[in-house]
């Protein structure tokens, strides 16, 4: 191959990887960042044991290790790209070994498919690493010149492939079978070994065959078309089987780009990226950015409304701004926590609960959120559990969660700091809530319980009254207002929204309703409604749940 061809091919490959990096960084960065919150890599033998007992342990261990670096926004796309680069590099050498012209360009073809898959939420980095491991293992086999030895090593690796790399064992199997295509006997033996090992191993690991074949992709969550990864092994063997000599490299490159772009577009979900960005920024305490982003809720997303309310509450203007933006009834205040709800929302739901100091619901949401995430672990939720346990003076539980976080790379310092607070009794004032029993997601009774023991909790008070209002339950609003607002804020002028609701209930003089609000109400009732689109009267009359 001439130097010019090499340079051209390298340049095209570099172009592809630059474009891929830009797309990952600009369009799906928070899809990647959120993956870090759904795993928990521990530097502990128990954790390693737990991974060793599952299929794809080599890919999974490497994947989890690198995914913890996704905490840093630039490293997330960079590490994904590095995994893809190793896949491409392995394929390039393999194709070179098979005397395929322009191997660097042909190697882009399956790499582009894997890139598109990596843009999916929940699609683990372990898949790209597993693919790379499979390709390099196939390369190792193809470098063995002794036919018998090569066949033997291929056979052994075929059997070991699933426990090592999971789903992309098929990539290895496809590649070695394609390499051995001139020996029918070898193909038969390899096919038989692959089929028997897959069958036995799925029984051993107690997974259904479809689940087993796609692992470490876990079906049943947010990944559409779990088995679409099979296109990568299929594309990888095309040049080996059909030679690929006659095709113009620019055509192959263009096809690779089209494949990557169309796949990325197909899997792209702008609203989810927006929701994940809000949730992740909140998790990292970047509340100014959250406020800015939530204010422009172009998708009319529930998460957007939820974080707009939450940032307003943090700034003490929840009531004032309540009806100045998209408001999906009560679901903009709290996100319900149950098995039917996406764990992404459950992760986010904890933030409002913590803001209201509703630790019982927050603890519940953290455990349910973690339980309903694909791997049933989460650094983010473990941190919440540790926080709640510390606040509750639940020392043993706090120690347990902190001891886990101390075994991580990036939460170790947080856990050490948290433990120092735990043993300092002056750090927190224990919130002595009078104990009541209420149903999960019964936010009103939960907030009432909090306010009974801590009437100064203004965030909880505003959330409760706003909840009543958004639910259009004016009787409950009056009861809660009389019980929790009046005794402490009687001498203050209530926020306009409260005044508007009180006016509807024909509340008396002692409620401090301004003349301006009374006049506006008359104006509204006389049919001049369009002037009051942001009023509670307008909301009460027209707001309804979307079909």
């Amino acid at each position, binding site marked *: 191959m001439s130097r010019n061809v090499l340079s051209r091919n390298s340049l095209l490959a570099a172009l592809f990887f630059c474009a891929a990096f830009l797309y990952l960084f600009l369009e799906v960065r928070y899809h990647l960042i959120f993956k870090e919150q759904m795993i928990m890599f521990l530097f*502990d033998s128990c954790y390693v044991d737990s991974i060793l007992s599952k299929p794809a342990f080599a890919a999974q261990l490497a994947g989890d290790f690198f995914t913890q670096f996704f905490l840093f926004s630039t490293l997330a796309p960079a590490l994904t790209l590095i995994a893809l680069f190793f896949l491409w590099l392995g394929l390039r050498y393999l194709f070179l070994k098979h005397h395929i012209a322009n191997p660097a360009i042909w190697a882009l073809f399956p790499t582009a498919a894997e890139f598109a898959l990596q843009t999916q939420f929940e699609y683990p980095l372990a898949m790209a690493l597993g693919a790379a491991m499979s390709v390099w293992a196939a390369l190792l086999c193809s470098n063995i010149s002794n036919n018998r030895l090569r066949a033997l090593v291929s056979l052994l690796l075929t059997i070991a492939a699933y426990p090592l790399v999971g789903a992309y064992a098929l990539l290895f199997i496809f590649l070695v079978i394609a390499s051995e295509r001139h020996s029918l006997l070898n193909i038969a033996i390899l096919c038989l070994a692959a089929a028997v090992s897959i069958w036995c191993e799925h029984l051993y690991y107690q997974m259904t065959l479809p689940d087993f074949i796609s692992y470490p992709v876990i079906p049943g969550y947010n990944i559409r078309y779990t088995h679409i990864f099979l296109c990568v092994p299929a594309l990888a063997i095309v040049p080996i089987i059909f030679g690929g000599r006659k095709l113009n490299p620019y055509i192959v490159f263009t096809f690779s780009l089209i494949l990557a772009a169309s796949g990325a577009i197909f899997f792209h979900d702008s609203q989810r990226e927006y929701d994940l960005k809000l949730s992740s920024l909140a998790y990292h305490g970047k509340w100014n950015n959250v406020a800015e982003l939530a204010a422009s809720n172009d998708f009319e997303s529930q998460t957007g409304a939820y974080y707009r309310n939450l940032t307003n509450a943090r700034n003490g203007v929840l009531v004032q701004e309540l009806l100045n933006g998209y408001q999906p009834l009560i679901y903009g205040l709290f996100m319900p926590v149950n098995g039917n709800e996406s764990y992404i929302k459950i992760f986010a739901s904890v933030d409002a609960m913590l803001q209201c100091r509703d630790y019982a*619901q927050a603890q519940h949401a953290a455990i349910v959120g973690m339980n309903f995430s694909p791997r049933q672990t989460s650094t983010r939720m473990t941190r919440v559990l540790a926080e709640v346990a510390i606040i509750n*003076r639940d020392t043993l539980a706090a120690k347990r969660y902190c001891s886990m976080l101390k075994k991580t790379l990036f939460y170790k310092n947080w856990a050490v700091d948290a433990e120092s607070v735990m043993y300092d009794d002056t750090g927190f004032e224990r919130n002595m809530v009078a104990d009541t029993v*209420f149903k999960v997601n019964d936010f009103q009774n939960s907030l009432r319980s909090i306010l009974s023991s801590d009437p100064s909790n203004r965030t909880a008070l505003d959330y409760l009254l706003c909840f009543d209002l958004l639910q259009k339950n004016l009787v409950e609003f009056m009861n809660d207002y009389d019980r929790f607002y009046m005794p402490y804020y009687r001498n203050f002028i209530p926020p306009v929204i409260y005044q508007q609701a009180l006016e509807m209930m024909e509340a008396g003089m002692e409620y401090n309703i301004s003349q301006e609000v009374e006049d506006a109400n008359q104006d509204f009732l006389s049919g001049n409604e369009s002037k009051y689109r942001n009023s509670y009267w307008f909301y009460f009359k027209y707001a309804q749940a979307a079909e």
Partner: protein
Amino acid sequence: MKNIITLISTLLLSACVSFNNYDTRKCKPEIFPDYTDIDIPVNIAPLNFMMNGASCLMVEIEGREKWVFKSGGCQMRFPLRKWKKMLETENNETLNVTVYAEISGVKYRFSPFKWTVHAEKIDSYISYRLIEPAYEVWNVLSIEERCTENFNSRNIANNAITGHSCMNCHTSNRAQVPATFLHARSEGGGTLYCRNGNWRKLDTSTDSTSGPAVYGEISKDGRFGIFTTADIRNGLHSAAMERFEVFDNSSDLILLDFEKGTVTDSPVVKGPAFQETFPCWSANDSLIYFCRAESLPQPQRTKEMHYNLFSIAFDSRTGRLADSISLVFDAAAIGKSVSLPKCSPDGKKILFCVSDYGTFPIWHIETDMWMLDIESGEIDKLEQTNGQFSDSYHCWSTNGRWMCWASKRIDRVYGRPFFAFVREDGSVAKGFVLPQENPGFYNFTFKSYNIPELYDVAEPYDAWDVSAFYSDMKTERMEYVKHDTK
């Protein structure tokens, strides 16, 4: 793979351990799990432990002979064969266990503690449900069977292959020909009943009872089952240390006749005035013990629910429950509430949970196990056995000399299976947790061990069998037979 790595690392690390010179510490070592001064069965798996901060360990065990074990890290993992040989040699002996540890470059010898080895064996198998303590919902759960004599375990039910359905209450009657059941919920589910290797899938709900069978036991002959049928609800506690409350809006007892395929009851253990739950058989199946409280609106008055322990006679020849009940233990009189009674195999004792109120003890931190001597009526509060937090879901070994239960003493959140020896005089020794191959295991799992159950004969099925029964087997609908009031 895991075993190979462990073996190689243990051999390499333990080769360099020597404790010729050391400082003496006049305290017992802080090991995890706490295996100091316990009574152990001769057939228990190695009591592997760890000591935080130690860079190498040596354990000297002295009984009839002297046994030395070394480890090149903070974990002491006893080799299975040598451990077995040691226990067989030291049967019925009290062993002095001395731990030597190197911590921050200094070698220490700690005060010895005791292991008393008992010839009375613990059952060879324990089953438990592994589930995240996610309160009322579940995602991934399995029922595991673990051999208590080594570290082998296998799933006997796994909802990953049954469409993520709920599975619970795997229970054996521990008879020579064991009969076991487990409930598989969701569509296509039912109560899976296995006797003599024969499986049946039963729909235990009828039009005349309030729902399917929930908590219960099978009689020794495997023919009858006594169960609760209940409308179970749950809620959150707002107070800091409480987490969750499970309560029944209503609950009754039902008797299943597996041979006839019938469900029956008795007017004295059903109806809206009282709630009856957690039934168990007496040793000879002539009595059924159960918990009963006056029915009050829930959850408003959950804290006023105080369950007492009652019994009702049962005639196994006619399959008929009696028309009257007797009070066995008045917990309400002392402001307590009883749950989960379990009668000892010799019929002399009843072990039950005692909480401040309510029916569901596992989330109550104050829950302890108490032992009632049936003949004398004396209560043993098992202070040496109960932990700081909830101790519940107990069961007896087949020979009645061991008890097993789920305790949250390690971290208050996650239940772990504990064992304790029951002495001839009925007193109970200090408990110890089910040993694990990796002693740090309990610190790094989000799973709770739910409903531990001892039995001596391994289940003849595995998770794939259960999956097949779940999806393929036809459900037998049980018929309600009205109680004969004669």
